[in-house]
């Protein structure tokens, strides 16, 4: 049985609900052209990020790949800076420099950001893990990526060294079987990403990615190994990409029957909560997202001075 308290289970559900609510809002407003078309919907995949981040501490490092908003929300970011960015407003986390392909970061809670050139987070996460090893600060680094991104050379380069050096690193793959419209099976010798772990002599774990608790447990074990100096773990969460690759993707490479066995991760998690808790948290999350949306709509748009900010740091 899981070691999760009911408080923690509620926080997790609330964060999933925030992510879902943001997804729905974006889908609605993309059609009104308020959001940039670069959004990669994360609807249906919320359980993996929420379960994984629940096993991390605030000062653990998260490097995310950026499908949906749940990784950042799971680590503790608020809807305000997220929606502000998506709407290109001054109250956004990057004041409009990030946005559709999100570059939200908040170093104070270990949200280190995203590289939009996929596969770039492997060595970056390796770098923060190496920093932790040198400083002996006990922090764990988690790199999140999709199954398609396992084709990058940096996947191998980083894990080869991380395994040899026993870095406190977790590779966390959301395996939805698709890279845009290409099937993983067309480009990979295996559709089980966890298989790759054997080559690095590290544990490879496959979990049900629609189940927050299963994901939490797997990640908790990997975190414990990392903190104990036993090195990296590769976790593969089998997930379902419920929507298109990007918002507006006609998805003519898929059929509806793919979703016959679909289990909504929010429904799976709601069963763990008592009474009307799920309904209450959904409402709360929706209201918080609505408030963040209104606030962002009222916030000023960035002016040209934003272009000149943050290029160089002056000591």
């Amino acid at each position: 049985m899981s070691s999760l308290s009911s408080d923690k289970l509620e926080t997790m559900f609330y964060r999933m609900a925030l992510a879902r609510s943001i997804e729905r809002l974006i889908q609605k407003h993309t059609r009104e052209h308020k959001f940039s078309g670069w959004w990669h919907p994360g609807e249906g995949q919320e359980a993996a990020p929420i379960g994984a981040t629940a096993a991390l501490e605030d000062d653990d490092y998260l490097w995310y790949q950026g499908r949906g908003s749940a990784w950042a929300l799971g680590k503790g970011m608020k809807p305000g800076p997220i929606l502000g960015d998506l709407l290109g407003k001054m109250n956004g986390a990057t004041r409009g420099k990030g946005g559709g392909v999100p570059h939200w970061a908040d170093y104070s809670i270990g949200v280190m950001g995203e590289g939009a050139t996929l596969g770039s987070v492997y060595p970056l996460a390796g770098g923060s893990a190496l920093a932790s090893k040198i400083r002996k600060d006990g922090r764990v680094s988690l790199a999140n990526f999709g199954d398609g991104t396992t084709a990058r050379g940096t996947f191998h380069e980083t894990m080869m060294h991380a395994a040899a050096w026993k870095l406190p690193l977790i590779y966390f793959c959301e395996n939805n079987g698709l890279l845009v419209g290409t099937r993983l099976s067309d480009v990979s010798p295996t559709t089980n990403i966890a298989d790759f772990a054997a080559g690095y002599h590290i544990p490879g774990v496959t979990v049900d990615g629609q189940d927050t608790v299963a994901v939490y447990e797997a990640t908790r074990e990997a975190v414990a190994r990392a903190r104990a100096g036993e090195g990296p773990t590769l976790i593969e969460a089998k997930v379902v990409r419920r929507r298109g690759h990007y918002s507006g993707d006609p998805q003519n490479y898929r059929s509806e029957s793919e979703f016959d066995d679909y289990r909504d991760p929010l429904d799976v998690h709601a069963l763990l909560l008592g009474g009307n808790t799920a309904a209450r948290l959904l409402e709360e999350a929706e209201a918080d997202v609505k408030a963040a949306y209104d606030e962002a709509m009222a916030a000023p748009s960035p002016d040209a001075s934003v272009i000149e900010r943050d290029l160089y740091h002056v000591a």
Partner: protein
Amino acid sequence: MSHEMMGYNAAMGLALVEEMRRDDSIFILGQGVATGGWFGAEKGLASEFGTDRVIDCGISEAFEAGLAAGASIAGMKPVVNMGFGDFALIAGDEIYHKLAKWRYMHGLDVPMHAVIIFPIGTMGGAGPEHSSCTEVLGMHFPGLKVVVPSNAEDAKGLMKAALREPNPVLFHSVQGLGWSRGDVPLDPEFIVPIGKAAIKRPGTSLSIITYGSMVPRSLEAAEALAGEGIDAEVIDLRSLVPLDWDCVLSSVSRTHRAMVVHEAAKTAGPGAEIAAQIQERIFFDLEAPVMRLGARDFPLAQHADLEALAIPSVDAIAAMARELAAI
């Protein structure tokens, strides 16, 4: 404070030792750094600082540069010796996207320390894929600082500045100068600031704007020209980003004639930018077009003699200066 005669690479190494003693968030990684480095700059570091801070990597340049970026974002001060400037292309995403843009694209005003050492240029037959001058790439991707020392003293002083700089620095060490020796200050506070050019030889007839391996050659050419009544000013840029435009423009405004000399390929090389800006900014001070001398636009040959023929020689620099002075 005293000085000591030492080689260019040893001077870089001295800066590393001094700064690593001062600041334990500095660590160095690369291929073979724990066993002294390919060119000797890291000699002795592992025995003093241990293999936790002097780290050997496999053949994985993208990883090495990305590791530096990640460690830097996490608050450490990594130094990577990439072996050759050519390998910038293997780690292009990590250097020109991640190191250069991470802080900007995430809208953060935070320090980001990282020094990438790129040995550049010809060294007598290293071949087309081990001799490229890639410094222009750093000029094209805002967010990085770009330095190229031309002598042992600057190799130390610029390395010290780079190690204290809260922005990623691409430190181009010049392979052809690796064993050249110079009188290097032993003062641990001796720093050559990034972004400050040096007038190596004052003159009145024309300005030779150069850096790296072409500094000693330009000085030699200038001495030969002096006997012919051409008094060339030689400017060592030392940093390409930021570039000391005040020094360059005021020199050219005085001499009214300018030529840019570098070992990097001529087409779209650093000289293209420098010449263009001189003409944009002080056109009416000029009495002649700004000229450029760079490597011929071919891959370099493995044969050392062919290699030497492809890059500017002392004679070629002098010949261009004569041509420029005569206009």
